[in-house]
């Protein structure tokens, strides 16, 4: 059975879907849920009922690669080494690995901990060298594997995913390519063409090869249609991602996307029944107002009634001319916009002027706020 890949939008209940599927598993079924972040893992665990008929385990992606892909068959890669890879050596850049480490030391530190940035590469090597022994093993342990937030997987991770797709395991993946704000490895250069939102093309290629089905899950229950329409304009239009529709119909009197002049921010915040959460990119350093403050990156996974986003130069360019944001900036901005249930304020200098200069695609979708 080909893997099922859900191309979800923000607020479409990705995790709920996985939790529902796990809860409905029959007795005797074994399953594994994988996701990159600790946050997403505890999210799944917290939502699962305390007693399940089936046997289920939730695991982080790195732990999965170590325990189920690399460790069992590592000796077949280095038959003369009597060692068991354990744990993880977490580094931020390849520069932190001392030079001149060859053979097994290319992948592991002296305590036999795999370097996180080379873990997926090692995983791929093990799969290749053993003709897929780890996948065969997983097939015998698990009936179902769920991957949540697949957009965090990059480079060689995708090769492991491809191997899972090509197995007897029922693979169900869900994620939102528009929210690629995290990556398992920034240094993994494989599948570079499928970085960020373009990952959708990788899945499309797998679909064309018969390895998976792509099911858009494009209905959000979180934010209203005005925000949905705006969010659809953030990423590269040539990717032809399906438009988002909303079932969130609540009318509060201040709904949709607004341009707010920086000088009026305090006034704007005061005008709302409850203060908006301020979202800012690390690049937009400036005087920050009082209230809940979150960066784009840390906002992932949360929901607020209203947000006010401190715009950056590239965001302004996007609004004026639809000049594409870099993939990570686009994802960050998309995450920021899609946090709000009712209203998104884009805070900028010269809001009125910008409003007049908005690109045709944005005209009528953004209102100018004034006191």
């Amino acid at each position, binding site marked *: 059975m080909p893997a099922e890949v859900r191309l979800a939008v923000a607020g479409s209940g990705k995790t709920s879907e996985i939790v529902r599927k796990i809860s409905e598993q029959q007795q005797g079924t074994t399953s594994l849920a994988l996701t990159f972040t600790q946050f997403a893992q505890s999210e799944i665990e917290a939502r699962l009922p305390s007693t399940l008929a089936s046997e289920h385990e939730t695991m982080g992606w790195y732990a999965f690669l170590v*325990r189920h892909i690399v460790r*069992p*068959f*590592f000796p077949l890669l280095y*038959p003369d080494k009597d060692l068991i890879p354990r744990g993880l050596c977490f580094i931020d850049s390849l520069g932190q690995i001392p030079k001149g480490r060859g053979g097994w030391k290319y992948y592991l530190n002296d305590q036999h901990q795999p370097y996180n940035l080379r873990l997926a590469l090692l995983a791929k090597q093990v799969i290749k060298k053993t003709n897929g022994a780890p996948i065969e093993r997983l097939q015998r342990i698990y009936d179902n594997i769920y991957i949540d937030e697949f957009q965090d997987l990059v480079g060689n991770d995708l090769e492991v995913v491809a191997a899972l797709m090509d197995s007897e395991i029922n693979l169900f993946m869900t994620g939102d390519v528009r929210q690629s704000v995290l990556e398992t490895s920034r240094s993994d250069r494989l599948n570079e063409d499928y970085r960020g939102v373009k990952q959708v093309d990788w899945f499309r290629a797998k679909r064309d090869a018969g390895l998976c089905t792509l099911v858009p899950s494009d209905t959000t229950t979180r934010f209203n249609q005005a925000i949905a329409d705006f969010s659809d304009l953030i990423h590269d239009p040539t990717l032809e991602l399906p438009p988002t529709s909303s079932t969130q119909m609540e009318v509060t009197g201040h709904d949709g996307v607004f341009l707010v002049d920086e000088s009026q921010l305090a006034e704007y915040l005061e005008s709302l029944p409850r203060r908006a959460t301020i979202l800012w990119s690390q690049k937009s350093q400036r005087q920050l107002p009082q209230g809940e403050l979150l960066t784009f990156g840390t906002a992932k996974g949360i929901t607020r009634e209203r947000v006010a986003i401190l715009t950056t130069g590239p965001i302004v360019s996007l609004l004026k001319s639809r000049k594409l944001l870099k993939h990570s900036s686009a994802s960050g901005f998309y995450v920021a916009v899609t946090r709000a249930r009712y209203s998104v304020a884009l805070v900028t200098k010269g809001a009125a002027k910008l409003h007049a200069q908005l690109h045709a695609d944005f005209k009528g979708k953004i209102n100018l706020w004034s006191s």
Partner: protein
Amino acid sequence: MITRIKATNYRCFKSLDFVPHEGMNIIVGGNEAGKSTLLEVISLLVGGRVRGRWAADDLNPYWFNHDVVRQYFAAHKAGQNPALPEIDLEIYFSDDAPGVATLLGAHNSLRLKCPGIRMRVRPDSDHHAELEAYLAEDELPELLPTDLYQVSWHAFSGDPITRQPRGLGVALVNSNTSSTHSGVDYKLRQLLRDFVKPQESAKIALEHRTSKAKISNGILRTVNERIAKDEGSFGVSLQMDQSANSNWDTVVAPHVEETPFAMLGQGRQVATKIALAMSRSAEHTQLVLLEEPENHLSHTELQSVIEKIQTLSNGRQCFVTTHSSFVLNRLGFKSLHLMHESRIIPFDASAISADTMAYFKKQSGYDTLRLVLANRVVVVEGPSDEMIFNLAFEKVKGRSPRAAGVDVITLGTRGKRALELGKALGRKMAVLRDNDDQEPDHWRAPVSDYLEDGVREMFIGATSLGRTLEPQMIEAGNDTALRILFGLDAKDDLLKYMLSQKTEWAWRVADSEPGLVWPTYIQEAIEFIDAS
């Protein structure tokens, strides 16, 4: 299913590599041959315990093979700086066995892609400095400092194991009847616990605690109030024991037909344990280890136990050690492994030719067992040869062959089969036979592969002295003595008389024990087999 067991440097095993059969495995061997240690290795690898204790708690210098330790200290004293001995135990499972998928990996000494479990005992790298200091001491006792060793227990997947892997059931039934007061040892308790579902266990635990609390708060309170009034009572009060050693599973005792387990005869205890182990569904116990089921059992009990083992062994892999030819005969030769001096000799084509195997399979288990269990074997052709040899031995050596540790077995003309088995087992063996008018070398040639000077030899009378035992006896210088014994006079044909009497003559010789001269080949055989 276990496909292979390897044990290095563990107790009597310097280097064991055992390939068991799929279903039934009967392991036969003398005392101290290592049979129990083999079962111990299996249950240690699967359950992590030995003699009821966790491996790391039980670890002591005697875990290590004596010879290996001795060699180590000899090399150490000679300043060769040898590596400290390590124990390596491995159990390989077939790929399709249930419940073993998570054990699949290549962390084994053979670097095989296989499910399995490995236990290693190695010097603890955290104690490197202490070890160095210890070994630098003069006058070291010849014992390894196992307190500076570490036990690692992991699956072939590399995952550490902390308790018996789920889905891998093993039932060990040893014939030691329990010494604890309830008669319930941890193995039996394990068997019993499997009858109780976790939810039920929780409920029993709760009600057990509650009822204990009820007694403490009820009648015992009255008692305690009275004690308290006594000024010399030092605050003593009586409470129901709520500590761990009074958990419900330690006070629930199995009963058989209303009789508590501990009150059963030893035979019934063993039979009950076997029945419990075998009654659980094959899914729970794929492995059954039975240690000498014949112990403590009457013949009829044994018979019914064997029947149980046979009918219930379907789908399970059984390892049965035994001394009993009855057990062996009933459970079948095709599952036989011979164990000798901590080595396992498979009773199959890899060690023994197919027709010899077929011969022993037809043969009664009794004779085969004797061949396997005896340290020194004399094989003779017929009952007369046996009686005469026994008598000769006793007269020459002043004690019976049995007392000298020599087993005399009548196997007809199948000395070749015995020699082949003897070679496989590394046994000392003398084969006596008639020359049948052929030169001795005519009979030695076909079995020359199995003969070895001083270890396995053939003893055959010279052709000039007659073709069978009877003329050989006469020619040895016993003509007169035998005529007197049989009441024959000079004109009677002594040889014809003896040949016509078959074994009767030998019986009369053995019965009256006249002073006789023994044929040279018999004398030589006696000296050969008695030499150490």
